[in-house]
């Protein structure tokens, strides 16, 4: 039947797509668009623009699902190198918006740090794919340097949120590669000790204040704290069953800032309640687990490490965003994956799932077809 509807090349192409993951992704996207419609006060135009983002993302998903891990591996080094060069260029001739120098103008404004979200795990996965696993200590140190260089460059812009995401995507590769639990434990302890020391002895008063606001936003109710305060009220007043779609007072009376982007989780919570959140989290959990499962079926080490890292990163975005909006974690500008409004985020995430799908072993798929 499919053969009759689509040209044969498309049928072959679609066979590389994981139908189960795509189906669940579609459910999430649908839920996201419905929430966006409410959050934007029934702004159909915005929902249409976001749908276009998804369409582009879907195209890229199908496109990247055709690319084998061997091909991607060859891109890793130069993508990473170009990315680092662009980051350095940003610091020299970048475009400044809202006090941060994050963009490069090449006919249009591009944000090279976005490239690094993919380039860094690719590069680290590439590095480990050449080495014996579990990795030796020196390899881990070199991998960490590969992560640290772009991370510091982005931090300098300054863009703390993105640099954190870039760094974690690299760390996830190192973790998946089999870095020893002792080293992981040691690292955690080191950070646990160094951070307070840094806070008490290595910072100026104004820096300390900034950290305090980061961890206790409600101390600054006129600034960042206002967002958290309002989003907690939104979520809390939603109750177990929510106020109903399009019925959120906090959202519709304009109390909730950034409600169609970073804080859309609060709109969702207010309107759909705890029940809605259970469904949403189940969808996310399934997507992440499916991603990890697909990664484990990767063609080679590079495929498994990259696919696994992308899946865990997806979780990390989710965790940082929902943790922030519900007032558990510091405020870091991270969108709710596939729900928040925004082209870049949607397109790159869909692309990442395409990459995960494309790197699976081909043999099994041929077997299934026969």
């Amino acid at each position, binding site marked *: 039947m499919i053969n009759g509807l689509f040209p044969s090349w498309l049928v072959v192409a679609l066979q590389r797509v994981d139908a189960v993951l795509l189906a669940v992704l579609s459910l999430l996207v649908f839920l996201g668009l419905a929430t966006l419609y409410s959050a934007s006060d029934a702004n159909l135009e915005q929902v249409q623009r976001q749908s276009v983002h998804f369409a582009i993302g879907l195209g890229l998903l199908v496109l990247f699902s055709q690319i084998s891990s061997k091909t991607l591996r060859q891109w890793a080094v130069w993508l990473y190198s170009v990315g680092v060069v662009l980051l350095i260029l940003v610091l020299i001739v970048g475009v400044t918006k809202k006090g941060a120098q994050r963009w490069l103008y090449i006919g249009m404004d591009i944000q090279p740090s976005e490239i690094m979200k993919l380039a860094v795990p690719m590069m680290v996965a590439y590095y480990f794919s050449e080495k014996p696993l579990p990795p030796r200590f020196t390899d881990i140190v070199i991998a960490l340097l590969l992560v640290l260089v772009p991370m510091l460059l982005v931090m300098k812009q300054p863009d703390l949120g993105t640099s954190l995401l870039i760094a974690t995507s690299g760390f996830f590769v190192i973790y998946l590669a089999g870095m020893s639990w002792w080293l992981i434990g040691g690292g955690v302890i080191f950070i646990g000790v160094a951070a307070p020391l840094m806070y008490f002895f290595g910072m100026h008063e104004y820096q300390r204040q900034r950290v305090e606001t980061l961890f206790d936003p409600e101390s600054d109710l006129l600034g960042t704290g206002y967002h958290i305060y309002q989003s907690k009220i939104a*979520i809390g007043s939603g109750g177990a069953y929510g106020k109903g779609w399009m019925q959120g007072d906090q959202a519709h009376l*304009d109390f909730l800032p950034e409600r169609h982007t970073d804080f859309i989780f609060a709109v969702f*919570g207010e309107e759909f309640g*705890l029940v809605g*959140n259970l469904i949403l989290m189940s969808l996310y959990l399934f997507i992440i687990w499916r991603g990890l499962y697909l990664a484990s079926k990767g063609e080679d080490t590079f495929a498994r490490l990259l696919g*696994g890292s992308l899946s865990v990163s997806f979780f990390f975005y989710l965790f940082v965003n929902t943790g922030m909006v519900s007032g558990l974690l510091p405020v870091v500008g991270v969108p709710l994956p596939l729900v928040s409004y925004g082209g870049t985020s949607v397109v790159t995430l869909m692309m990442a799932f395409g990459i995960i799908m494309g790197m699976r072993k081909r043999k099994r798929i041929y077997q299934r077809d026969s």
Partner: protein
Amino acid sequence: MFNVRAIVAGIIILFALLAILGRVYQLQVSQHEQYSELSRQHYEKRIPIPPNRGQIYDRNGVLLADSHTQYVLEVVRDNIGDENGDGRSTLADVDVFIARLGAIIPLQEKDIRLFKTQVRRFKYQPIPIRVNLTEEEIAVFAVNRPRFPGVSMEVRMERYYPLINTASHVIGYVGRIDARDLERVDKDEYIGTTHIGKSGVEASHEDRLHGQAGYHLIEVDAHGKKQSVISEQEPIGGQDLFLGLDINLQIQAEKLLGAERGAIVAMDPSNGEVLALASMPTFDPNLFIDGISQKDYTSLRDDPDRPLFNRALQGTYPPGSTIKPMVGVAGLAERVVTPGSRVYDPGFFRLSGQKHVFRCWNKRGHGSVDLKYAIQQSCDTYFYDLAYRMGIDRFSSFMSRFGFGEKTGIDLPSEAAGLMPSKEWKERRYKRSWFPGDTVNIGIGQGYWISTPLQLAHAVSIVANHGIRLKPHVLRGVRTTRNEEEKLLKPEPFAPIEVDQRFWNLAIQGMENVMRPGGTARAAGAGAAYRIAGKTGTAQVFGLSGGKYNAGRLAKRLRDHALFVGFAPVDNPKIAVAVIVENSSGSGGHTAAPIGRKLMDAYLLQQYGENMLKPAGVVGVSPEPEPEPEPVVSKTEKSTKKVTKKSQSKTKEKLKKVRGARD
């Protein structure tokens, strides 16, 4: 290796997401109530609607305090934008905003101060910043309105007093609410209210007059912009007050005092209603409504005649001989004297074994006198003797039952208690023991004893009532809506003075004789169409301390106070009066008693003449805001000014010692 790591990651992820869900559960289930309430508070805003202030009428429905429309500028702080350009809308923007608004509409310093205190508390409520806009200012603002999105022009009712100076001490006045007022009222009720009672009935019955603020409960968005009306409650206007005051009698009283300093209190003894309460000179309460100018205030405050001072209930004077009938009743009740007992008056009284002589006003003496004759002749010796034999303890406690030495509890602010001296009081105050001579002086209403004109009227009402004591009050009735009949308030009784009726009759007969040939007020009592009971009094002022010597004024200020108390008709008392004329040229009988008589005539015979004020056709509809100025009022005004000019320096006058009353 990868699979183990992936499974571990998957499990960690599961728990991390459960942690998020746990947090969401905490917010949405455990703390749901709290956040629901916060959410509701966020989008529900109460916009107060100030109530209309009740009007004040006299007992016949003549309007004494009315309200007329005026224009007010109100500001909602939340609608003040980012004025100082720092990217945020904060309190700092308010100052810049005020400066900008002040550039086109004059704002007063005190209005700005009040505005700032209120604006800090209320972000979404309209707060007045300027009242009583002139027509020109209304036009200026109308043109500039688009430049001030947070400001709205509202129509408000404002007080005015059509009778100007008349009865200003009773009616009082309203003024702009200040920070001190805000501390003692329900702030939520007064958000939109601009004025509050500051003195007189306006202050003492503020609760009744103000009414209840209404509100619109509206749904607002985060910018305070109205989305919809959730519910609304109309304000409940304040009650209209009907005073016991008969404004025509009040006008008579003020006219009779004329340019003199003094006070008159007229009461209905049967119910305690104050019919007239005059204190001269008076002032124009309209000056205070929107903040009195410094110049006006200085001239009122520094006027040596003290027009703002309500002599009728703040002024304390030696009661003089006016209390002799009450003292007589006390003597009879305490069995110190009997109706038939006599005292020989050689023209003085001397305590046995002492040289000091207490003189009777009549140096030749009255010979052998009984109580009735002693009252008629105001024989000092009889009462020296009575008081001395009664002793201060019994004397003081009995006179307290006539209300001396304590506030009457009238519904007007700032009443003075006067002083009914006692042994304990003197020891406390002067650290000296009580001398028998002190008691002797007290017997004729002198010495340490001081009382207010209101207390005298109250005491003589008790005599007129044969001991029944009712609380004096100015508020006679109220009504809640414009079209209903006023509801009369019940008089509040005190414990009556229960003594043999014959004692009252004897005292009253003495008082009647005062008004007859041979009495001290025979001239004032002549030709009355009804029976009058009265008692004159004269208190000689002696001694002055402080201030510059000013021969002309000193002479006047050293003159006696003339007093009169009385009631009529004797068999069915309808009016009781107390009159005091400060530093009068004549005695109580010559100056004060005729005033009392004329008041009684005016009230009992309705002799108000051509200019009598009548209630407006339909009560409650305000007459033209331009009232007919009373000729007597303007005359008083003129004479007050004259005195002000004449005496610039301030002299503190203190009654140091008062010699025996003399009548």
